[in-house]
């Protein structure tokens, strides 16, 4: 199974990949730097993806918009999504859970790496 990592920041992606690899996570990591790329990867790989790490703020299609679409598409609606955001306001969190009541995790940057790993591990297959 694969992890889909969606983040427009190359630095963020590099950091996450390094952390995941260092902690012994061996799953293949698919990377998308925007919502469009993420849609293509989802369209072709949704059966192989075990968890989606999704950045909120991205140009054009934001993470919250992508997630709103995913929950309406039967093939994607059950995919666990962990939403990452640097804006940790209560309002944003409320909206995230309103959009996806089954949200697998809501991470506020800068997050503790242990926190991220604890959220991801239950979904690794």
């Amino acid at each position: 199974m694969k992890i889909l990592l969606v983040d427009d920041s190359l630095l963020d992606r590099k950091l996450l990949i390094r952390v995941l690899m260092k902690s012994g996570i061996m799953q293949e990591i698919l990377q998308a730097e925007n919502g469009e790329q993420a849609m293509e990867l989802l369209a072709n790989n949704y059966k192989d993806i075990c968890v989606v790490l999704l950045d909120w703020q991205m140009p054009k299609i934001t993470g919250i918009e992508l997630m709103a679409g995913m929950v309406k598409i039967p093939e994607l609606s059950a995919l666990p999504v962990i939403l990452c955001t640097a804006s940790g306001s209560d309002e944003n969190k409320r909206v995230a859970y309103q959009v996806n009541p089954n949200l697998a995790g809501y991470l506020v940057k800068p997050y503790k790496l242990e926190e991220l790993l604890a959220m991801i591990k239950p979904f690794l297959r």
Partner: protein
Amino acid sequence: MPEGKFHRLDVRRMREIIQQESAKLNLRSFVNDSENIFTLALALSAAVKKIFYEKSEMTFSSEPSLEKKPIVLYFNEMRVDAMEKFNSTTVFSVIDFAATEEGLENHKYLITIIVYLEKDFLPEFLRLLQYPYIDSDDEIEVKDGCGTLVNLIAGQYKREMANLGYKDVMMSPFESYINTAMDGVLIPKGVTEKYAINFEIDGVKRLAVEMVTQAKLSKWKV
């Protein structure tokens, strides 16, 4: 379709659903600059790591820790108590960035970075970066040594910012202090939070860097 058989999803249909849901829930209104600021903090962390790796092949013993903290203001300047960073005499140096030379002169800063080090560990840091030995009991040498380090970091940081698509910015000369800055430190106006980044060597915190960034970052993207 038989159960388990893969079919590719229609991306155009996905896009339509996303647009509909976004409009229905007004999701475009939840966009702000926090993400850009976090990325700039990561870029600063990357700049520090790159300098040490390129100059000495030294790597820090763990990923630098990033933390968002509230700023304590003292007559409109940021209060800095370096003794909170380490439990020993601490030297710190400050560099500001502004959009123009005029902005620097008028203290219209976009970013302020502050580098903190234990005074007694500074000679070792400089040795790692292949600088000559300095006397840690000589205040002038200590302030100059820390300033040299913040200059290196700020220069690399400018390059990292350019890689992220930001316009070129002007850099101020450094100012160095020991333990505290009596009048505080001038920072970008109206900012209430800073990023604190800690770096460890052999499991011990040895370097602390803080970044204060103007909130309206999108304005200075190329």
